[in-house]
């Protein structure tokens, strides 16, 4: 531990001057202690550095220092054609790969007016909801692990494995799927898909009960989470917080209902909310969300329509392989799309979807060329992480671990 005077700031220009407004007066006098938490710290859920000003064990200020995982994805995407850039969307929020694919494709589809067959839409919904469950499982496992509940972590990863196996079944990849493509899907789902999903749906509600038997009424868990990090609805809105964090503060805002996409309006489900706005409320909301996701997947699977899964618009979607040997046009389209790519009309669009963490948005600007002129990601983790200093103030260092967990940040999503 170092006092303020001897502390070297890798932030800004290396001097204290740029920082004095961030810490309290007492830090400058050497009264309180500055401590680095991370970037190499298991409970920061990635490479997040927190600069803590501590009075004993109490957090006076907490300054998140983000950017350790900055990969320049947005800029990189601008250097690739639309279709090649898609593989990078998988790598932003690596717990929500299909959701990222979806929002990126929705943006392109909005820009180009591309149609998506109904079967593709329903499969998209099924996969994205499964992805939501798997993301919440990682959140639950690691959050519980941070609060010293080891077995929940093991159980969550056991179930997540089933979902990842389904993803491997449909796309050939467990995580970096690139399965949802502009105008539909990569390929139709294989025959064993429906049965695999049904098996999962059957077994999973009981598994949620198991997790809950370990946590929901556990006095140790309650003590660590109840009343911790209370966020009022007003604060949540002011900080641009979305997703389960906002809903745990009492506002039933969910883009799946507010601005339905991919046919979400056909499905009947509830938006779980809670009024307490504390860490426990966020736990309750996310647990209920998993149950609602099951409900959506069930409905989508029951009325899964038959038909094509890719648009027939040859200006944007490569032709099927069987046409290559018979049709010259198909060969030309195929070569053109895989080399130069497609050229959407000039314009700019914004599309937002409800990711497991909140509103995930893509802003896409096209200059009429084959590459995006500008692409910007509105990532929920970044917005939600901003509230950490506010929530951490006055709490103990040990509670900070719970607060990072409850924000459910993914650093790939924060830093991009």
């Amino acid at each position, binding site marked *: 531990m170092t006092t303020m005077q001897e502390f070297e700031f890798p932030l800004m220009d290396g001097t204290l001057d740029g920082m004095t407004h961030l810490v309290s007066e007492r830090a400058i006098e050497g009264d309180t202690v500055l401590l680095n938490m991370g970037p190499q710290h298991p409970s920061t859920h990635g490479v997040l550095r927190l600069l803590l000003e501590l009075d004993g064990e109490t957090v006076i200020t907490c300054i998140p220092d983000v950017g350790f995982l900055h990969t320049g994805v947005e800029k990189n995407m601008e250097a*690739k054609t639309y*279709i090649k850039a898609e*593989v990078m969307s998988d790598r932003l929020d690596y717990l929500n790969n299909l959701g990222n694919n979806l929002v990126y494709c929705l943006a392109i589809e909005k820009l180009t007016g591309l149609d998506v067959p109904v079967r593709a839409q329903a499969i998209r919904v099924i996969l994205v909801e499964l992805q939501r469950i798997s993301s919440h499982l990682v959140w639950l496992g690691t959050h519980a692990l941070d609060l010293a509940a080891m077995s929940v972590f093991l159980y969550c990863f056991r179930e997540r494995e089933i979902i990842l196996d389904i993803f491997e079944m449909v796309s050939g990849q467990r995580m970096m799927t*690139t399965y949802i493509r502009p105008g539909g899907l990569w390929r139709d789902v294989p025959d064993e898909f429906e049965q695999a999903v049904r098996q999962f749906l059957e077994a999973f509600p009981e598994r949620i009960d*198991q997790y809950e*038997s370990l946590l929901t009424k556990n006095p140790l868990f309650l003590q660590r989470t109840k009343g911790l990090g209370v966020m009022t609805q007003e604060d949540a809105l002011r900080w641009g917080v979305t997703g389960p964090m906002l809903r745990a503060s009492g506002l039933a805002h969910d883009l799946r209902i507010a601005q339905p996409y991919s046919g979400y309006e056909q499905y009947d489900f509830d938006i779980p909310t809670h009024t307490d706005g504390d860490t426990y409320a966020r736990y309750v909301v996310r647990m209920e969300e998993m149950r609602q996701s099951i409900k959506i997947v069930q409905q989508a699977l029951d009325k899964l329509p038959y038909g094509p899964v890719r648009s027939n618009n040859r200006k944007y979607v490569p032709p099927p*392989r*069987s046409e290559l040997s018979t049709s010259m046009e198909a060969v030309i389209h195929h*070569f053109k799309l895989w*080399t130069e790519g497609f050229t959407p009309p000039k314009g700019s669009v914004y599309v937002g979807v409800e990711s497991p963490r909140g509103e995930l948005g893509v802003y896409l600007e096209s200059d009429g060329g084959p590459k995006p002129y500008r692409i910007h990601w509105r990532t929920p983790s970044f917005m939600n992480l901003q509230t950490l200093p506010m929530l951490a103030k006055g709490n103990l260092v040990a509670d900070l671990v719970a607060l990072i967990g409850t924000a459910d940040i993914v650093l790939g999503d924060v830093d991009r």
Partner: protein
Amino acid sequence: MAGIIGEILRGLSTTLHMAATKPVTIQYPEVKRPVRPRFKGRHHLMRYDNGMEKCIGCSLCSAACPADAIFVEAAENTDEERYSPGERYARVYEINMLRCIFCGYCEDACPTEAIVLGDNYELSFTDRRSSIYAKEMLLVPVDEGGKPTPQKVEPGIYTRSIPVMQDPKD
């Protein structure tokens, strides 16, 4: 107090119950998890039944690759020395496995189903140079009944570069 103990016992009963179930883990590397048919692993360059290479050296895979992992250099076929149907074949074909992200775009783009992603996910090497898989490593062995390339053939048989293909199912 009784409630607290009751809740802890409830949790314990869950973990005890789990301890009695069969483990879901497998002992890798002794036991290997079978992969799904669509799995995207190490690439193969395919051949026709007669041993002729499918790759026509069109470089479309290389153009489609988002990671710029593929390098292709084509050369002319002759009927004296024929490697593949059509005019050209890949004289040099290299994939840099350190760059490859296993997205499968190359397989999608290939007009002859020459490059295919296989099942092997155990790619490790000790230096960067060996991360470049050359054509000899990628090309599958000749099937029984086929002849190795280059083949000497009658003129005028192999004029078509793009074969008749089905839509992929798996």
